[in-house]
Each structure stands twice: as structure tokens, then as C-alpha cells.
């Protein structure tokens, strides 16, 4: 096995293993249970049907300016190939798994530049790419696998021995495509030219920057042209990132410097321990990762110089889903392995903390990984969320006219499975780093303006209860229940309060 790994097939084997695991990790959950996944597929549907890059599910289908277009374009191509939704989701799943496998392959190929022994680096990378949070990501229709493949490709090319014009163009194209997949790909547009510049490849740096900007420019032009076309009440979920950051304000951005964005990592890796021990272990863990990053920095400078702005953006961004960090797990695993091997060579004062860390990680992450994989817990949330939506969409499909406009807590999902025009039921805005609801009156006014005829919620609890109670209080006929399921979904006929 070692011979096969060292003879050059290691990265491909890692890619195949990850691809297989990613396919196994797919669930039968409905598309849209994690909200963003539904929006991606709804955008893909709009593109596939020739309607343009618009939020097809919303009334008047406004231009889409929140989610970059590349992932929806990929899904749209598959949709054209097989236009039967939801049967065609199997193709989306296949491509997402292939993207994650490709990402693993490229990262493993790139990791050959580090001095980490083959078996250790391939094992670390495989564990990193198949960690249960990543399996959750690849199990739903998120753009992360494609983004990771493009980002890894960009840094892999940029860190190559000879970066001539051809490779400069290639890395620029990949960095631009990564930005067209996730806006945070701009970290690559910044980091890669800097890395090339610092290596003395100034012309290549300029070419890479120019090409990346050229590739990403159409999207930014689209934003400039259509950024204001979204209803301000929907700006949080449908507006541009500039509008989003504007809502948070400078204070909201700077508040991120408490590094809460790193917490998911530590929570994932370190088990619950008494606070002093937990802090000590966390410090050791971060120190080992930093030592590892420094150890490999000279061999993979582009990677480091992309990850620094990436983590910086995640840190400052006012709302950061954990998944932004999960895709860094393979590289974190690689750095931790490099740091551990380095520290091991320092004698007892290096070996003891590494040994302790290994035990803690085995008890923390290792145990959770085993349990998650054994019971497929990484898929539990998606499957559990899917069940009430299955009933709800069946009810909407058979219980509302085709012209109905439905307000829902999963508007993209309800649209995809029923064909109804939908709007979000919950309207939010940012205040610093806090999400605040707009209140029942504003929401009711918005629903009336949009011509909403029905309200569909997947769960009669949480945010839904006070909002629906407020609607009911505003008039007897505002909400007429068509069905309500105990501890489950509900569908109402909606009339504007007089």
C-alpha cells in the first residue's frame, strides 16, 4: 500500500475514497431543508428553464444578487440533461460527491509539496475531508464541495514549481471561478497574486490577478446593475453582501474580532472538559496547527496566503455559518499533522503535549466521528427537517390553487415541490451581529403587498407561533386553518387584516 501511495497514486486513492464516502453520505432528504440548498436549486431551475438568473419562486422573479451563479449554473446544466425534479436530484448528488472527491484529490496532490510522510498526510486529509460536518455539507445541495475543488485547484497551481503564463492564467481562472461559486473566493483573488509576488513571479502575479478579476467581473457587474432590485425587507437573505454588511455596520464587523468564528472548530475537535483543561488543550491544539502551518509555509505559500484572508473574512463577517469553516478541515488536519510531527522531534516537551492532544482528539472528535458515521447522525437534521416538509408540500400541492402565493418558512423548498409562487414568512434584518425580526405588522403588510393567499409553516413552534398568533389577533378571518398537524406543519388561508 505504501508503495502504491509513494508511486504517485496516493492522491487518486484519497479522491476515490472520499468520492465513495460522499456518495454514501447522500440522504433522501428534500432539497431545501437547510434553506440555502433550496435557493441554489431554485436558481438552477430558473437558469435551466431559460428564465435567467432570477429568484423564480418570488413574485415577479427579481434578479438574484445574493448567491454567486456558478454552482446554480452547474446544477442547471444537469437539470437540462434530466428535467424531472426531484428525480434529477440524484445527478446533483453525484456531481457534489464528485466535486468533493476531486477536491480531496487536488488537496492530496498539493500536499505532496509538504514534508509530511505520505501515509500520515493522506490519512489526515482523508479524515479531514470525511469529517462528519463535511459529510453533512455534501449530503445537501451546498456549493462548498465545488468551491473547495476550485479553491484547492487555484492554490495547487499557484504553488507549483514553475508558474509561467499558462499556469498564471490557470490559477487566475480557478480563483475567479471559486469567487463565482462563493463570494469568499475573493480570498484567492487576493492571496494568490500576493504569494506569486512574494516568490518573485511578478508578471505571473499580475496575470493571475487580471484573469481572476476578468472571470469574476461579470458577476460584480450584474450586482452593480441589479443590486437594488431586491425588496429591502428581503435584503438579509436575498440582497447583496454589501447590503448585508451595511446592515451590520462597522461595529457588527469588528465585533467578530472575538474570534467566535473559530469556536466551531474547537467544539468539534475537543470534548467537553473542565474549563481550565479545555482552554489548555485548545491552546495546544491551536499552537500545533500554527506550528504545522509555519512548517509547511515555505512549500505552500499560496495556500497560507489564501487561508489568512479567508479566515479573516469569516472572522469579521457578521453572520458566519459554521460550514464556512468546515471546508478548511482537510487543511487543518494537514497542518495539525505537520505540527505534531515537528513537535515530536523536539524531545519530551514536544512529545507530551502532542501525545495528550492525540488522546483528547481521539476522545473528542474521534469518538463523535465514529458514532456519527455508525448511526449516520450527520444526516439526522436533514432527514428530520424533511419529514414535516413532505407533508406540508403534499398539502399545499393538493389543497391550494396553482395561482396561490404561499408564504413559508422554506419558500424555495415549497416552490420546488409544489410549483407555487412563494415568499419568505420570516423577515429579518441585521443589527450589529444580531438578527432581528421585522414584526407582525410589517410582515403582514409585506405579505399583503405580495398578494399572499396562503401561509405554510413546517412547524407550529419557534418563531412561527408568535407571528401567527399576532396575525390571528388582527382579525378572525386573517388566518383560516386548512390543516394543522400536532407538532408538525400547518397550512392557512391568509387574508389581509382590514
Amino acid at each position, binding site marked *: 500500500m505504501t508503495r502504491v501511495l509513494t508511486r504517485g497514486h496516493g492522491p487518486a486513492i484519497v*479522491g476515490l475514497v472520499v468520492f465513495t464516502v460522499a456518495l454514501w453520505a447522500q440522504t433522501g432528504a428534500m432539497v431545501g431543508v437547510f434553506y440555502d440548498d433550496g435557493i441554489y436549486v431554485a436558481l438552477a431551475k430558473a437558469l435551466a428553464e431559460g428564465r435567467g438568473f432570477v429568484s423564480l419562486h418570488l413574485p415577479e422573479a427579481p434578479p438574484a444578487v445574493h448567491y454567486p451563479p456558478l454552482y446554480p449554473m452547474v446544477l442547471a446544466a444537469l437539470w437540462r440533461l434530466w428535467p424531472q425534479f426531484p428525480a434529477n436530484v440524484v445527478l446533483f448528488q*453525484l456531481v457534489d460527491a464528485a466535486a468533493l472527491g476531486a477536491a480531496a484529490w487536488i488537496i492530496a496532490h498539493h500536499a505532496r509539496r509538504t514534508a509530511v510522510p505520505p501515509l500520515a498526510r493522506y490519512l489526515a486529509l482523508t479524515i479531514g475531508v470525511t469529517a462528519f460536518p463535511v459529510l453533512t455539507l455534501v449530503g445537501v445541495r451546498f456549493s462548498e464541495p465545488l468551491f473547495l475543488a476550485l479553491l484547492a485547484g487555484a492554490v495547487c497551481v499557484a504553488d507549483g514549481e514553475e508558474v509561467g503564463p499558462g499556469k498564471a492564467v490557470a490559477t487566475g481562472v480557478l480563483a475567479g471561478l471559486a469567487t463565482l461559486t462563493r463570494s469568499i473566493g475573493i480570498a484567492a483573488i487576493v492571496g494568490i497574486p500576493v504569494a506569486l509576488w512574494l516568490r518573485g513571479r511578478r508578471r505571473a502575479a499580475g496575470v493571475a490577478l487580471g484573469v481572476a478579476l476578468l472571470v469574476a467581473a461579470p458577476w460584480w457587474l450584474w450586482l452593480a446593475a441589479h443590486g437594488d432590485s431586491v425588496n429591502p425587507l428581503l435584503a438579509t437573505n436575498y440582497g447583496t453582501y454589501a447590503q448585508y454588511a451595511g446592515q451590520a455596520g462597522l461595529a457588527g464587523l469588528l465585533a467578530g474580532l472575538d474570534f467566535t468564528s473559530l469556536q466551531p472548530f474547537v467544539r468539534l475537535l475537543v470534548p467537553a472538559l473542565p474549563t481550565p483543561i479545555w482552554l489548555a488543550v485548545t491552546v495546544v491544539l491551536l499552537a500545533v496547527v500554527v506550528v504545522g502551518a509555519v512548517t509547511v509555509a515555505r512549500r505552500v505559500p499560496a495556500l497560507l496566503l489564501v487561508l489568512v484572508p479567508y479566515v479573516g473574512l469569516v472572522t469579521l463577517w457578521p453572520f458566519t455559518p459554521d460550514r464556512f469553516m468546515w471546508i478548511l478541515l482537510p487543511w487543518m488536519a494537514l497542518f495539525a499533522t505537520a505540527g505534531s510531527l515537528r513537535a515530536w522531534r523536539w524531545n519530551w516537551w514536544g512529545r507530551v503535549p502532542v501525545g495528550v492532544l492525540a488522546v483528547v482528539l481521539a476522545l473528542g472528535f474521534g469518538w463523535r466521528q465514529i458514532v456519527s458515521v455508525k448511526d449516520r447522525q450527520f444526516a439526522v437534521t436533514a432527514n428530520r427537517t424533511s419529514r414535516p416538509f413532505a407533508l406540508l408540500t403534499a*398539502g399545499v*400541492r393538493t389543497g391550494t390553487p396553482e395561482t396561490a402565493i404561499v408564504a413559508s418558512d422554506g419558500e424555495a423548498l415549497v416552490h420546488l415541490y409544489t410549483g407555487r409562487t412563494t415568499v419568505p414568512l420570516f423577515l429579518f434584518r441585521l443589527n450589529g451581529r444580531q438578527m432581528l425580526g421585522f414584526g407582525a405588522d410589517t410582515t403582514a403588510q409585506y405579505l399583503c403587498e405580495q398578494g399572499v393567499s396562503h401561509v405554510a409553516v413546517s412547524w407550529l413552534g419557534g418563531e412561527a407561533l408568535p407571528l401567527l398568533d399576532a396575525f390571528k389577533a388582527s382579525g378572525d378571518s386573517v388566518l383560516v386553518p386548512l390543516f394543522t*398537524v400536532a407538532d408538525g406543519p400547518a397550512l392557512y388561508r391568509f387574508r389581509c387584516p382590514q
Partner: protein
Amino acid sequence: MTRGRATWIAAAVATVVYLLALRNGWAGDDLVAISDNPATHSFSAALGAWFEVYWPGEWRWAGLYRPFTILTYGLDWSIANGAPWWFHLVNVALHAAATALLVRVVLAWLPAIGALVTGLVFAVHPVHVEAVANVVGRAELLVAVWLLLAVLGARRYRQAESAGARRWWLAATVAAVALALWSKEHGVIAIAVIAVDHALEPRRSRDSATGLYLAVAALTVAWLFLWRGIAGGLVGGGMHAAFFGLSSYGRVMTMLPVYLEVVRLLAWPFALASDYAPQVIQVRESLTLVGTLGLLTTVAVLAVGALSVRRAPVVAFGILVAVLSYAPTANLLVVSGVVLAERNLYLAVIAPAVIAGWGAARVWDGPRRRAAAVACAGVVLLFAYRTVDRIPLWSDALTLLVEEQAAHPENFHIRVLLSEYVAARGDSAWALGELLVAGALFPADPWAAVLASRQALAQGRPTLALQEAERAYGRYRRDARIVEVLTDALIATGQPDSALAVAAAGARDLLGSEMVLAAYRRALAAGAGASWEATLVDATRDWSAGRVVSAAARLDSLERALPAAVELGACARLAATVLVVRALRPPLAAALEALAACDLPPTGR
């Protein structure tokens, strides 16, 4: 004898021996899969069905996925406007191509004369008739052609001198494997077949073929995922009647004699059958003498394969490919939809063919050359005669059914198929007769009894219908068709209360089954059941069909007119409908439980 001449002669013989097949029409599964299947009636329709399961309509449960095979049918239909002779011509051409490719493959180990004998035996082997002379056998022919091409491509990949050539042959081999997979599920053995050929090749290549194996493995994994995604829970749903109700041990005990039969068919292919159902194959639940013989034969075949790796690698190749190609339908680890089918032995015939070729090559240069030539010619002529003799069996559906019934009167399944055929043409009396005989031949199969019961009901013979339905119900209760037919038979014989009990129990066991709920409703109507119970059943039907708003409205009306009391026995029946009431109107569920004076078991949603 040159290598090229050996190839052409074998291919030509494969063509000539099957020319009679051009006179055949549609027979057997051709009707469902091709002549009555709109997806095959044009190239564009076939292309549009690329992501559809192989069998259309009610046959979808078989869970097969063969889009490339469908595409070739669509192309044929577009070219010949549905004329069967063209489909048969393409099958014959594919058989000739497979024969030629086999000759090319074995030329790596055998001299031209040995390869020729291999090709000739393969070309005329009578077991092939089902695959070649029946159009739906095309899937076997296609998968064989692509697999053999993949083997040859992989060889070229391993032997390629330049990186460019290696890339080209890698792409070609992967494409061949992809087409094999899309032709028939047996394509999954491609990686193993390539590995067997690699391990046995006379001149081991210095370069590693890991890249090729990784590419083929990735493709195979992707295809398996796609197959499962498209066929869904249908995969493996087509369990053969012989295995119904059998334990894993019983299944293996049933299959052991079948393995003996497989070896017999490959070595002595003169007694043939188009359908190997009970009692052509007998269900056995313990080890029998013939089972022991099957086990010993299987072990012996594997031992010969292993022992010949060094001495006669071509024999090892033939045996291992035969074992690999038979494995997916061996019913050892997974249950398939067939116990034994001659078409599934298409690739397995490589084993006797290479053994013959290897034997001929051994004696060709010795003093018994003439005797060897006579023996080979005799075998080929005998096989060819049996093949030509058997081709007309597949000329049309009725010929196939009637002749097979005459040849194998013990086969219950042929009688079921014949009954369906004659029933579709209006002869219901003949159909019922065949079904009753089928039931007598193999009482363990509940589906023949269901068909007989339906047929008897249609003919106004309720007592017979009830007898057959009870036989099916005694065999298996958790199937909607069985519950429905028994309910209807009980209604027809004037037993509405029993019908109600059966339907309610079925509705409880098979939550959400529209067929059972409809039967339940008929039982209520026949017995003038309580209106509250009918409302509950209607609400449950709405709920199961996703008409949740309608279900809620029905429960509203029931809530307004709650009965003062419910009769004895209602408690058991409430279990079938309590799910919808608990979900939509929990207080009503509590009220009904109180009226029926029972605590119903919790229900999941």
C-alpha cells in the same frame, strides 16, 4: 491459420448459424420491453428515457437500469420502423462481434487454431439462443461486447509506450466499461474481469495499471449510485417466486442444485428451457444429494480454475470470467429476480469454449491432430444443429409459451404467463384453468393465487375466488393485492363482516396503502358500515394521497357529528385510521378511543 482468419471465420459462423433468427418476431419479454414500450419507439424517445428504469409501467419493480440498451432499441426502431427482423439482425451482428472479440482476447494465450475453436464453440453454443434469437437478449450481447473491448483496451493501456497513448487507451477502456454498465448491470464485473486478464497475461507489463483500476472503480461506484438513485428502493425488489418465504439457508440449498445445472448447461446444452421456475427448479430447504453434487461441482470448477492459473491461464481466464459473470445472479449473497436463465450464461459460455480451444491447441501439433479436428467439428456441428433447431422457439409469444408448456409441463410460471397471454385475448376460461394448474404445481406462490382469484371473481365464481384468495392470504398477509382480493372475495360470498375485519387489519399492517383503503371502503359499503368509520377511511385515503386539506375537512365534519357510541370490535379497526386523527385532530382521537374503550398503540408518522 492466421489470427485474422480465425477471427473472421468465427464471426462468420456466428452470423450464419443465427440467420434463421431474422424470421422471428416478438417473443417473451420483447413485448413488454420493446414492442409495447413507447420509450423504444424512436431514438429521441429512447434518449429521453436515459434516466428511466429499464422495464416500463407496472414492471418497474424489477429495478433494472439499462439506458444504452434502450437507446439501441430506439435507434433500431427509427431505422426499421419497428420491423423485428432488423432488431434480430443487430442481435446477430452483436453476437458475431462478441465472438470475434473473444477470439482476439484468447489469442493472447492460444495459437490461432485454439482461438478459432474457442470462437466456434462460443458462436454455436445452444445456450446462446435465448440471448441472440430473442431481442431482449441484446443486453447480454452488448455487455459482452463492451466487456471484451474493455479487456482489450486495458491490455493496450498496459502495453502503451507513450503517456499520450496511455491516456487514449485509458479513456477508451473507461468508455467501454461505461457502456457495459449502461447496457446491463453485469458491467459491474468489468474491473474484476480486467484484473483477471491482467493477472493471467503471458507477458506481465512493467508499468502499474493502478490509474486504470482507480478510474474504472470510480466509474463503477458512480454508476452503482446512479442505478440505486434511479431504480430507488426497487433494486432487489424482483425476488423470484422460488425464494418467496425461504430463509437464506433455504435459498442456498435451492441454488446448489442449480449450480450443477449451470455446469450441465455449459457442458451438455441439449436439454434447454426458456424459464427455470418451480418445478423445473425445485425449492429445497435442506441439503440434498443433488445439492451436495452441486456443491462439489462448484468447488471442483473453482479448483480447476485455480490450478490452471499457471499451467493453462486461458482456462483459468475462462472459468473465472464465467464465475464472475454468473455471480450477480447466483443468489448467494443477494437475491436476484432469476433462479436461472440461459441468457445470463452468455459470458459464462467462455469457459467451455476456451477449454475446447485449449484442448484443441494441445493436440493439434501432436499425432492425434486428425482425431482432434474430427472431434471439434463434431461438437461444433452438434451444437450448431441444436442451436438452429431451437431458434424458431422464439418466433412469437404464443409459440414460445405453448411449446415451453409442452416441453416443461411442470413449470408453474409458464402457465401463469400463458394465462396472462390468453386472458389479454379474451379467453378467460383458459386463463383461469392455467392459473389453477399453476397453483396446484407450486402452491407456495401467492401471486398465481391472487390472479386466479381475480379471474374467478371476474367470471362470477366467488367460492373459487375465495378459496384461491385464502390460499394466498395464508401464505402472505402483508401485501395489498392479497388483502384486496380476499376482501373482494369475502364481499362476493356474502361475508361483509369478515371482509371488514380483513381490510381493517390490512389497513393497519399496510399503513397508507391506497389499494387496501379502497378495499376497506368497499367492505364498509357492502356491510352498510357506520358513517363515522367511512369518514375515517376517506380521511385516511386523503391523508395518504397528500390531500391533507380534504382530510382535515372530513375530520371537521366527524368532530361535529361524533357518534354517541361505537360498536364492539371497532377498537381493532380504529388502529388503521388513528394516525390521521392523531395528527390532525388529537382531541378527536382521544374521544374515539374513549368511545371504543381502548388504548390504541402509538403510531409513527
